[in-house]
Structure formats: structure tokens, C-alpha cells
């Protein structure tokens, strides 16, 4: 039986929340928004394939696992990541860390986490949470997307850590190794690096399925769904899935756009750099457009009809989001590129 005095952090997104909470516990307070920005946790991607998860996939974030790593690297914080073949060893190492007083981040499957609300349990392998104690055969879990810490039975956590399949966690366990020490300057440099990376990924990748262009690509696909799927329920399901990715899966609203706007706002004050205040306001407006899109999609779902005119209408809304984001992130990219290179690290 061991328990670490750990302050729970209620966050919009699991990985940025875990990163911010672990850093704060180690004595380096950093907001979730900053962790998301430094770790470049905003993205867009639409994969029109059937193979993964049974249908076209829309994502508002980069591949899981990168936010923690990038944030630590850019801040010069030392950390350790381990994966396991043998569940016994994976659980024993977690136990040992807790006994030493080190809270650990782990990657898990969502379906087998018994504390999740039933209708939010689905087979997704890249959830992140913090384990900070052990009591009577249960683990004490600080899951950033919930408002308070919870307990998780040992067999449930074990199953969730060692689920197989796409993006299998393989028991992934990560923690900070030394107390993080970084200067204000280092944070500012990390912010610039994160911002430039995100702006590049959103506006400069020359492939049509990524970044702001990807949103326009999705719009084109959306327009074709009523013709492509003979059963209207299938087109509606596709549309509903975009909204679920946008809102349901822990994004702080509008698919991370609001959290990222919070990051841009904090950046404006921290650096200070007044240009970022304007960027933040623009992204807030884009976030509001995303939410209007979600609200309209919900109305369409309610009608249970897949009409071409209505799908074109929401495709138009997506195109406006696409144009707005392309403009915004190109501006940020140019702004960061045109700055004289500083030699802080």
C-alpha cells in the first residue's frame, strides 16, 4: 500500500493533461495549454480508408505519444519511457515506481477501464493517465479528462495496459527522472519551437489529407457521402463520427482549437509578443465556427435524412474552417520564420 500526495489536474485532453500534471508535481508548474502548445498537440488529418477502425478516420491531433516527448525535449527535461512484453514486469515496475514516490504516466486502452462512463468505452488504445498510488489491490488513478481521481482494479488496469491491436500500448510507462529545471528563456524558446512546428504541420505539408488543407479535403468527401452510401444511416454515421472526434473524445471543445487559442493567448503575454494576441482571437473565432458545424450536423442527424443539399451546406462550413486555419497558421509560420534566430536553448 503506497500513495503519493498528488494534485489532480482536470484537463481537456489526456496527454497534455498528463504532461502538465507530471511537470507540476515535479515542481515546474506549466498549464495544460502550454504543454499542448509546446508539445505541438494540434493537427488535422483525414484518412479516407476503411482499414483502421472500420471506416474513414478524422483526427484533430497528431499521433499519440508525441506531446509528452516533445514537451520534455523542448524544455530539456529528462524522462524515461519503457514498454513491456511481459505484463508481470510491467505491473511490478509500476508498483516499484509508486513505492519510490514517482507518479507514472501510462498509456491504456479505453474500453477496459472500468471507471469510464459506459457509453464512452470504446476500443481505442492511446489513452493516457497517471497512476499515483495503490490501495487494497486497486490503483489510484488521476485521469486528466475526469474531474476527480478514481480507483481502478488491478485486473482492469492490467488489461487496459496490455491490450493488443492498432497503436497497442504495450504497457507503455513514462515518468520524469530528474527534477525539471528550466529558465523562463527556455520556456520561451520551447514555445517558439512548438508554435513553429504546429504552424508548419497545419499549413505547409504538401499533402492534401494533412493540416488545414485536410479540412478542405474532408469537405469534398463529405459532399460525396450521400451518393456513396446507399443507406442514409451510414452517411449520417460518418458525419456524426467527425463531430465525436471534434467534441466527445476530450478536446476542450472544437477539436483542441479553444485549448490552442488559450496557448496562443498565454504565449502573447509570456514572450511578450502582441501578434499572438490577434492569432488567439482568430483561432477562437474559428473554434466558434467548428462548433456551429457540430450543431448543424446534430440537426441533420436528428432529421435522419442524408440530403445532398444539407451535406453540401456543412461541407461549406468545413471549407470556411479550412480557409481560416490555412490563413492563420501560414501567418504564424511566416511570423516565426521571419524572426531573427536566437541562440537560447
Amino acid at each position, binding site marked *: 500500500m503506497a500513495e503519493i500526495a498528488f494534485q489532480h489536474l*482536470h*484537463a*481537456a485532453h489526456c496527454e497534455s493533461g498528463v504532461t502538465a500534471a507530471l511537470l507540476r508535481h515535479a515542481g515546474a508548474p506549466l498549464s*495544460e*495549454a502550454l504543454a499542448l502548445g509546446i508539445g505541438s498537440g494540434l493537427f488535422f488529418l483525414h484518412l479516407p480508408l476503411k482499414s483502421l477502425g*472500420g471506416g474513414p478516420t478524422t483526427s484533430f491531433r497528431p499521433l499519440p505519444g508525441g506531446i509528452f516527448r516533445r514537451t520534455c525535449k523542448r524544455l530539456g527535461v529528462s524522462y524515461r519511457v519503457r514498454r513491456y512484453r511481459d505484463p508481470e514486469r510491467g505491473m511490478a515496475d509500476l508498483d516499484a515506481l509508486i513505492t519510490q514516490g514517482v507518479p507514472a504516466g501510462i498509456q491504456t486502452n479505453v*474500453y477496459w477501464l472500468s471507471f469510464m*462512463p*459506459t*457509453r*464512452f468505452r*470504446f*476500443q481505442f488504445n492511446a489513452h493516457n493517465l497517471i497512476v499515483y498510488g495503490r490501495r487494497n489491490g486497486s490503483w489510484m488513478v488521476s485521469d486528466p*479528462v*475526469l*474531474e476527480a481521481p478514481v480507483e481502478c482494479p488491478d485486473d482492469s488496469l492490467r488489461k487496459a495496459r496490455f*491490450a*493488443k*491491436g492498432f497503436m497497442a500500448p504495450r504497457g507503455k510507462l513514462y515518468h520524469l527522472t530528474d527534477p525539471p529545471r528550466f529558465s523562463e528563456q527556455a520556456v520561451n524558446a520551447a514555445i517558439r519551437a512548438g508554435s513553429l512546428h504546429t504552424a508548419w504541420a497545419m499549413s505547409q505539408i504538401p499533402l492534401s489529407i494533412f493540416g488545414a488543407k485536410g479540412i478542405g479535403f474532408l469537405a469534398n468527401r463529405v459532399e460525396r457521402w450521400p451518393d456513396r452510401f446507399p443507406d442514409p*444511416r451510414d452517411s*449520417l*454515421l460518418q458525419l*456524426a*463520427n467527425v*463531430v*465525436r472526434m471534434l*467534441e*466527445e473524445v*476530450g478536446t*476542450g*471543445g*472544437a477539436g483542441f482549437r*479553444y*485549448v490552442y*487559442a*488559450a496557448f496562443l*493567448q*498565454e504565449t502573447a503575454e509570456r514572450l511578450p509578443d502582441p501578434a499572438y494576441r490577434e492569432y488567439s482571437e482568430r483561432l*477562437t473565432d474559428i*473554434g*466558434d465556427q467548428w*462548433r456551429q458545424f*457540430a*450543431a448543424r*450536423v*446534430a440537426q441533420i*442527424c*436528428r432529421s435522419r435524412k442524408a440530403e445532398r443539399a444539407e451535406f453540401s451546406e456543412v461541407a461549406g462550413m468545413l471549407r470556411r474552417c479550412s480557409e481560416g486555419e490555412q490563413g492563420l497558421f501560414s501567418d504564424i509560420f511566416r511570423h516565426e520564420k521571419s524572426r531573427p534566430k536566437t541562440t537560447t536553448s
Partner: protein
Amino acid sequence: MKKEQVPQDESFLEGHQKAAYALDEHGKYAVVPSRGWEPERIATSVALEAQDRTLRTAWEDVGARRRSPLAYHMTRRQLTPGLLASNVGVSSWRVRWHLRPAGFRMMSLGMALKYAAYLEVPIERFVTVPPQPETLMEPSPNG
């Protein structure tokens, strides 16, 4: 989005709250707990209804002896034959064989126990399906 606009609608969160980012009265971003948002609930229910349909189809297939009870239990856990196979540690061809009534009947007790343990179904219920398929949309809050 402003702080007072953060929706507090009925949802599937079972009393939990999620963190939403919104602007406070000074135009600063703040984290505001939200009980849910109606459009999100509708989008989720579309997906839950689709899952219910898939499960009902599997349930009917078992009743018509087209597939074995394993198909029902697998679908209930939102798994595919490939996923079930890698999680239980057998080849996906074997899982496909066990998804057929003939293959299911010839399954060893050890194999059945393995499946039942992973799918968290008591072994006595593993060989049958419930009188009605389970649903996720059952207590539907208006709509």
C-alpha cells in the same frame, strides 16, 4: 466561446464533467467544467445506435445458426476477429472457425475458458446468447 455559454446539457457522461476552454469576463481563457453538450450527445447516440444494430445483427445470426455465440460476445465487446485473436493469443483463422456453429461445438473447454475470461462472460452464459440483445441506447434521454 464565453464562459457563460459553456453548455451544461444532458449527456452520457453519467454525472462526470469534462473540461471546456472558454473566455472569462476579462477575455482570458479559463477551464470550465461542462456537464455535456446536446449536439455531442446526438452525435454519440448515432454511433451508439449503429453499434446496437451491429450487435442485433450478430444476435439474429446466432439465433438463425449462421454464426456461433462467440460472434455475439465478440461484437458486444466491440471487437473484430483480428482483434479478438491477438488479444486472446490465437490465430485469427482459428477465431474465424470458432465463429461458425460447427467450429464452436468442437471447441475445447480450455479454449472456451480463455475466450470467456477475456470477454468477461461467465462460462455458463458463454455458450448461449441472452433472450434479447443488450443495447447501449436503452435509457434514451428524449430523442
